């Protein structure tokens, strides 16, 4: 598995084209986003998810879904529960309540290994890098390339890392240093490289560009569009409304652990979305969730 992905990544494109992917996508060769209303089964459906830490209901009966080739922006104030919700999907947290379906079938995700086996890759807000090893080791952490003797193939991994990083962050040179010595943006590039390098069909990006410079941010934007064209579903968490409006097809707003509402990006304005985030007001163009202000939503 690791061997094949290495070969694939050697192809010209940064991301493996759909046809060569091992895991068949729900809708093969599906073009750019088409309004999903009741047409296909969603790629991901998280239903009624709840999780509490001690007394705090970090996520409270939240439901979201994601279609192939779709980018769903996840918005909300600090501590709204965005990261917690996606960590349930990535296997980092075990939910207290709720159900996760992939292509309509219920799946069990008890740990990150389960999620990865289902093709769910995550860029965590905290990056989740092992600080004391180098970029290549982080890129392949958990799915190392091996030589025919079963030992680590460090040169091959470094070679792949040079290729991937060369496209994401062309100025990157420090392949021999532990990632703790890298800049914030360089570390973020490593985390992004890791998520896109392994044939994901669902990609979770928790504030992927928070530490990136303008050029690198633009590159990630391009990357998201490219991945989307290949039918990959993406959850994009961001505080940057501009980015979300630019890249996402649909957005979901959370407040205090609950979903305020869901809307197609083209049906709402930025001001309306701000109202959703700050006050929990659900505008006309959006479908209200359990977290919406009842009296105002009409």
């Amino acid at each position, binding site marked *: 598995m690791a061997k094949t992905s290495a070969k694939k990544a050697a192809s010209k494109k940064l991301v493996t084209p759909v046809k060569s992917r091992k895991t068949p996508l729900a809708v093969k060769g599906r073009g750019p986003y088409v309004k999903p209303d009741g047409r296909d089964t969603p790629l991901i459906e998280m239903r009624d998810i709840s999780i509490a830490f001690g007394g705090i209901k970090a996520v409270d009966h939240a439901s979201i879904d994601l279609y192939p080739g779709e980018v769903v922006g996840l918005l909300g104030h600090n501590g709204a529960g965005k990261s917690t919700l996606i960590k349930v999907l990535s296997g980092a947290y075990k939910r207290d309540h709720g159900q996760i379906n992939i292509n309509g079938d219920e799946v069990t995700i008890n740990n990150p*290994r389960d999620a990865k086996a289902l093709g769910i890759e995550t860029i965590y807000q905290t990056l989740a*890098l*092992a600080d*004391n090893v180098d970029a290549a080791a982080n890129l392949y952490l958990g*799915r190392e390339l091996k030589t025919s003797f*079963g030992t680590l193939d460090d040169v091959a991994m470094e070679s792949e890392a040079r290729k991937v990083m060369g496209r994401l962050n062309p100025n990157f*040179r420090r392949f021999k240093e532990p990632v703790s010595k890298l800049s914030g943006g360089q570390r973020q590039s490593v985390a992004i490289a890791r998520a896109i390098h392994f044939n994901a069909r669902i990609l979770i990006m928790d504030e992927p560009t928070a530490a990136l410079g303008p050029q690198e941010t633009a590159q990630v934007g391009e990357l998201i569009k490219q991945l989307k064209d290949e039918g990959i579903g993406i959850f994009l968490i961001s505080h940057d409304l501009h980015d979300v409006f630019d890249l996402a097809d649909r957005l979901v707003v959370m407040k205090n652990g609950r979903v305020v509402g869901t809307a197609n990006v083209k049906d709402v304005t930025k001001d309306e979305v701000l109202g959703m985030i700050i006050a929990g007001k659900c505008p006309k163009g959006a479908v209200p969730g359990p977290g919406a202000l009842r009296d105002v939503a009409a």
Partner: protein
Amino acid sequence: MSNAPQSSQGPALQNEGPVTRFFRATEINARMLGMLAALVLIWCVFDIASGILRGNFGGLLGGSFLTPRNLWTLLVQTSSIAIMSTGMVLLIVMRQLDLSVGSMLSLVAVSGAVLQVFKLVPVLGVGHPAIWIIAVVACIALGTLIGALNGAVVAYARIPAFIVTLGGLLAYSGLAFYLARGETVAPMDKTYEIFGGGITISWLGPFWSWLLAGVACAAIVFGIANGRRQRLRFKFPLRPMWAEVFLAALGTAAVLGTTLVMNSYPWPFKLIENYAKANNVVIPPGVEDRDGNAICMAGEQVVRCADGLIYYTGFSVPVLIAMVVGLLMTFLATRTMFGRYVYAIGGNPEAAELAGINTKFMIVKGFALMGALVGISSIISSARLNAATNALGGLNELYVIAATVIGGTSLAGGVGTIYGAMLGALMMQSIISGMSLLNLPAAFQNIVVGVVLVFAVYLDQLYSRRVK
């Protein structure tokens, strides 16, 4: 830039000094170099001090420390702690700790001895070849099992390793006492005794020692050449040629030097005499000295031996075992997924878990490996003593942890090397042996080892602060 071979890597530094360039090109860790220098310094000080206090016994600087005999013994004495320290490195790198290794060593050694003396010998008869094999396998298996138990409790019951292994320290030594009924269990099987390095057949002799050294040198050169070829193949930056040659020369010199010293230590007089008698070697008449011992000349040297009849020890089995363990553990730590995960967990346990690593099982495996190494050390210790007691591993946990920390392993996790820990063990044993050579009381030895431990960590802090 990254696609062309070049002589240096990273951001090019044009105006770096020759010292910086040397360290960068050879990738020699300045910290390790400091440790080697400290080791050499300690040796010299002990040799000079012993020369002043006790007279010249053929030491390099006029004392009795830098003699083949003392250095040979030093290596044998270091091997048990050095072997265990290689496992402790990985545990501490993984942010764990095992305080129970000393008690575990006692328990495993006593169990192995009881098995040999009271179970196997009555059934199979004295000296049966199966005895030592069963005993060795049993010791390693038992160690692994106890270690895995430690690890399982730490990982799955989520009790801090400090507490679990503190409990182990008490419980295992109690068990060892109970098993041995407080007595010494002896004697060990004759073949089993080879692992202790105390009998003549446990010495390799000059021929095999030199042969081994030759193989090791060839391996070093091959390793360096192969590394260079790999980097060339992938068009990675290369080390300058002079640095490669320097490293190869350094490695081979270290191997040959050690072998030379090991091959210069003659068998003790009594053993030569016994050996000669047992094997019908003619002992030519020697000159009697004032005490009535036969003395003779070996080259320039007056030796207390049946004249001219001299055998050299070469490497002894426990030292060889320690070297093999060191090599295997270095391989495990640097070339395998297991090692990679150990370091990743130490660097960021949460990230390792999120990357899909089964961190709990890794912890169990780490402790089990520690236990297996304790099993090996228990074999060496009990074979060397030709007996096992419940006090055999006393204080060993502290020596092992001290060696590991002196060797540059950070208690915060994520940082540490196998060779560093083994060097740490050698340094600690040097201090202990040196002081007993000077007839300093044992209590004083512990004081010094304690101070050295704290001082080594202090130096390390200074160093890492400067590097940052």
